[in-house]
């Protein structure tokens, strides 16, 4: 399997295209960084180690060896509630498609990681804040179902503001739908790994993100159920700086490990190795 053309194109846009020559500022330490240097450093600030939010295409390129076959890419959003607030839902979708070059908030498919065949899902905050609507639900469900059929480990990178309000209760129900698929996948003895990236909140963190066998958190990621603003409004005081960070969650015992972006692929490869097992259970 070759790396699909769209993935190669997307990667080169950062590396050689119009974006490569520009400057960008680290939102945490205000360091001004040459875009090309930032990309070479895997979008991690060289000064403060802030992990910039990563585009799904770049993430896939970073994780798979050099192959990726997408599944569920033909599933596209409808407008079941005929939603309108300041803009209509179809207008918002069109704007996000343009801005992100994505068709929805998650890309799912099959590839290999350090030689291990895997099912891989990558959510992207650039599309509707990574919110989970019915397309995200359907694509992830298809991924888990086909991974179960093929008896492959499944890794999902999460980045989400929660359930997508523009799809109302149909969106909330995706928590139930994906959980159903997770139970079948896991009960068949398959390994499920989630990697929580910045930010992972709401209906995604309160469902499959924390249902996996191994919960990995990317360094510095913000992870929680309620958003920081909601909590501050409720308790009417400022929260400590490290509250809801990956490091805070590790200390509290909520995640198995915190991994820097540069170490992510080798760390996942080490976990995948154990999924091969050792002891043959007599049946």
């Amino acid at each position, binding site marked *: 399997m070759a790396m699909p053309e769209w993935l190669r194109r997307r990667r080169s846009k950062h590396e050689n295209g119009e974006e490569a020559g520009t400057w960008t500022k680290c939102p945490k330490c205000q360091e001004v960084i040459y875009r090309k240097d930032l990309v070479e450093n895997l979008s991690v600030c060289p000064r403060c180690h802030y992990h910039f939010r990563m585009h799904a295409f770049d993430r896939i390129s970073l994780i798979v060896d050099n192959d990726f076959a997408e599944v569920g890419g033909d599933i596209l959003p409808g407008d079941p509630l005929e939603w309108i607030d300041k803009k209509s839902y179809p207008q918002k979708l069109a704007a996000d498609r343009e801005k992100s070059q994505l068709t929805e908030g998650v890309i799912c498919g099959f590839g290999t990681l350090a030689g291990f065949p895997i099912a891989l899902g990558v959510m992207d905050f650039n599309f509707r804040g990574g919110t989970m609507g019915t397309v995200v639900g*359907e694509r992830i469900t298809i991924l888990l179902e086909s991974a179960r059929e093929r008896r492959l480990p499944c890794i999902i990178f999460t980045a989400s503001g929660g359930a997508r309000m523009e799809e109302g209760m149909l969106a909330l129900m995706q928590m139930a739908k994906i959980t159903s*698929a997770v139970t079948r996948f896991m009960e068949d003895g398959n390994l499920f790994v989630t990697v929580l990236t910045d930010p992972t909140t709401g209906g995604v963190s*309160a469902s499959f993100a924390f249902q996996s066998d191994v919960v990995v958190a990317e360094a510095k990621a913000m992870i*929680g*159920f309620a958003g920081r603003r909601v909590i501050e409004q409720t308790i009417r005081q400022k929260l400590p700086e490290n509250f809801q960070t990956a490091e805070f969650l590790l200390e509290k015992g909520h995640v198995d490990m915190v991994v820097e972006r540069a170490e992510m692929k080798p760390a996942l490869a080490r976990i995948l190795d154990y999924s091969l097992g050792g002891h043959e259970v007599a049946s």
Partner: protein
Amino acid sequence: MNVIVEREKGLLELEKRIAELRTLNANQPVDLSAEIAALQGKYAQIQREVFGAMSPWQRVNMARHPSRPVAGDYLAALDRFDELHGDRHYRDDPAVIGGFAKLDGRRIMAVGQQRGRDTKENLRRNFGMVTPEGYRKVKRLVLLAVRLGLPVVTFVDTKGADPGIGSEERAQSEAIASCLYAFCSARVPIVATIVGEGGSGGALALAIADRVIMLEHSVYSVASPEGCAAILWGDAGKAEEAASRLKLTSEDLHAFGIIDEIVPEPLGGAHRDAAGLIAATLQRVAVALDGLRALTSSRLLEERYRKYRRIGAWQGRNRETLSAVR
């Protein structure tokens, strides 16, 4: 300020007047029955105007009505209820009550989200907002029910899961996620009833079920109208508009195939005849349980899987347009 409570004030005044006139009529020779009939006619007319066709926002307020029956009222109406406490780790969450119960002789595990009936009780019960310990208690009771082969019956009524610092520190996400997992994989029938407000993931954690029943004026929503308005309009004052867009009424959700049946409420809301409404609701639960009893556990799980599997509204290029809309 609850818009339903406000509108009820005029009706309560009229009710008092009618009662006064009746007493007067019985104790003196002047015949007031014409006046009484006129007032009763006016009362009925106002009642129809106020409650005949309620807007989604009025439904939200009805679902939050301080006199609306709470989960504990349904549990108290069962033949027997033996409460079990605590999550075995940290504490007993008063926002969830649950335990062994009997419904017309059927042995069940009953669980409900309990908001308070007054300010004092609301403070103790955290306004029905469940903390991680509450969800862990529910999960424990569901696993126990599975071991003993008891069907699970839930009563859902919460603004949402508790969003406090303590809940974050004690892994609210994981608690809800595990609860969802337990409901999806439970090899016993589950019947859920939305009796008040079904607020987001905090409500769903008790509402994955083979049969979902909803009271006519209950609401069930991806986010509170206030929260949705704050995020999408940048103005919490747009809650009424958000409520009208979110499709959170029982009729909307029935059309989407998200709930299975609706229990009609008396004109003026559940609290106008709480005992009758609770009896009717429990009757529906009993019928639903009997309908599920014949299924083997693998068939039950398969049908539950399919039920949630098909919920969505997307378009596929290489497949027919799929939709859960009935």
